[in-house]
């Protein structure tokens, strides 16, 4: 998902620290099993803390980087109404990033550190934001599909065992459904439009469908952090379960729009009551994660530039605050 559970290099350090006796770990697990929320200052296993820092910071970075593909259309929105809506949506994503950084900070890592990890390439963000937004229909497809997939994942996170993360997710989920609806509405308008507009909607759908399915992360058999995250109640459903749910709710919406799902293997399975769908191109997924998606370099370059361009503002605000303090003293 926005977090995808992808970091491959933390394995060696997932051992319990010296202070973590089996009794303490069992006590912690019992609290989690009893659906008690874990709060910032509570004792927690070091691996639990690290897993959360990784997941929450990846999630935050995804919200922040995720502003770029949509921001690309802010100045070219087809009407003032669409521009205002898109601006509000992109602003929300900035807000989501901030809620999540502040949830991450409760675990003892500073926002500056998390941002530094992103800019240095040590932290990841969701693969989905490395695809380009070529036409206005992409803005519709992102709201409908990408935010739709995000909602699927984020609703169970509202019940995550870590209190500050769960509370941030509640706030985010309240805002997401507007994102999805405005996207669907864009697609709906295009689908009722001229042939060229319908074609544009279909083209965007073709390009965003598979990457949206990849947002749920690797299949269950290849998902390395899943079992532990489930036991800790950070995660409530497996990647494949969430992906299936997403397909099941989205296919009928696509049919309503008169769009063809770009998957020849897709069909409704009467026995299971679910849609069966074709194999995901996992090589493409791995390539994008490895930094070789269509826009990885551009996204990181822009984030770095924005961070550096903002330096004088941070400096000036600090200098002003120091001067005010000196005057008051």
């Amino acid at each position, binding site marked *: 998902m926005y977090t995808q559970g992808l970091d491959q290099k933390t394995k060696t350090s997932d051992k319990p620290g010296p202070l973590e006796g089996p009794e303490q770990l069992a006590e912690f697990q019992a609290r989690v099993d009893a659906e008690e929320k874990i709060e910032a200052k*509570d004792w927690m296993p070091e691996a639990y803390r690290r897993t959360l820092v990784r997941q929450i910071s990846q999630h935050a970075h995804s919200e922040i980087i995720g502003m770029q593909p949509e921001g690309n259309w802010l100045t070219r929105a087809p009407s003032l109404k669409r521009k205002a809506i898109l601006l509000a949506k992109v602003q929300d994503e900035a*807000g989501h990033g901030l809620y999540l950084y502040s949830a991450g*900070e409760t675990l003892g890592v500073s926002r500056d550190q998390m941002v530094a990890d992103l800019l240095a390439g040590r932290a990841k963000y969701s693969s989905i934001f490395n695809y380009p937004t070529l036409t206005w229909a992409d803005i519709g497809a992102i709201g409908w599909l990408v935010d739709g997939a995000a909602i699927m994942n984020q609703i169970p996170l509202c019940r995550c065992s870590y209190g500050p993360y769960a509370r941030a997710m509640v706030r985010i989920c309240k805002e997401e459904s507007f994102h999805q609806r405005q996207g669907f509405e864009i697609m709906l308008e295009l689908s009722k439009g001229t042939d060229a507009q319908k074609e544009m909607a279909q083209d965007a759908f073709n390009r965003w469908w598979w990457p949206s399915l990849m947002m749920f992360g690797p299949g269950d058999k290849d998902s390395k952090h899943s079992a532990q995250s489930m036991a800790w109640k950070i995660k409530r459903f497996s990647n494949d379960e969430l992906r299936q749910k997403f397909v099941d709710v989205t296919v009928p919406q696509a049919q309503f729009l008169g769009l063809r799902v770009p998957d020849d293997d897709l069909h409704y399975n009467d026995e299971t009551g679910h849609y069966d769908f074709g194999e995901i191109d996992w090589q493409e997924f791995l390539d994008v994660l490895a930094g070789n998606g269509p826009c990885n370099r551009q996204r990181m370059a822009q984030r770095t530039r924005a961070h550096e361009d903002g330096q004088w503002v941070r400096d000036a605000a*600090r200098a*002003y605050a120091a001067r005010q303090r000196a005057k008051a003293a």
Partner: protein
Amino acid sequence: MTDEEWPLYEVFIRARSGLSHRHAGSVHAADDEMALNHARDTYTRRMEGVSIWVVRSDKIVASDPAETSAFFEPAEDKVYRHPTFYEIPEGVENL
């Protein structure tokens, strides 16, 4: 200039008059006024509040979760502080 992080502030929001302020999250800001502005932009984009308090996170004094049971122990054995402790005979009303 040293790239020291802006301090952290905790944000409390009163959703409507008549309700108490409630913790919403935190923001970084260079000074108090900026903290209020950031809190407004971050936590009340949809009219979620009519009043905001911000306070430097390092100014908050908190009880220690590791000491929770000892800290709250004095209240634990005082069941007589609850009305359910008292038995009222049948027939007595408005009590």
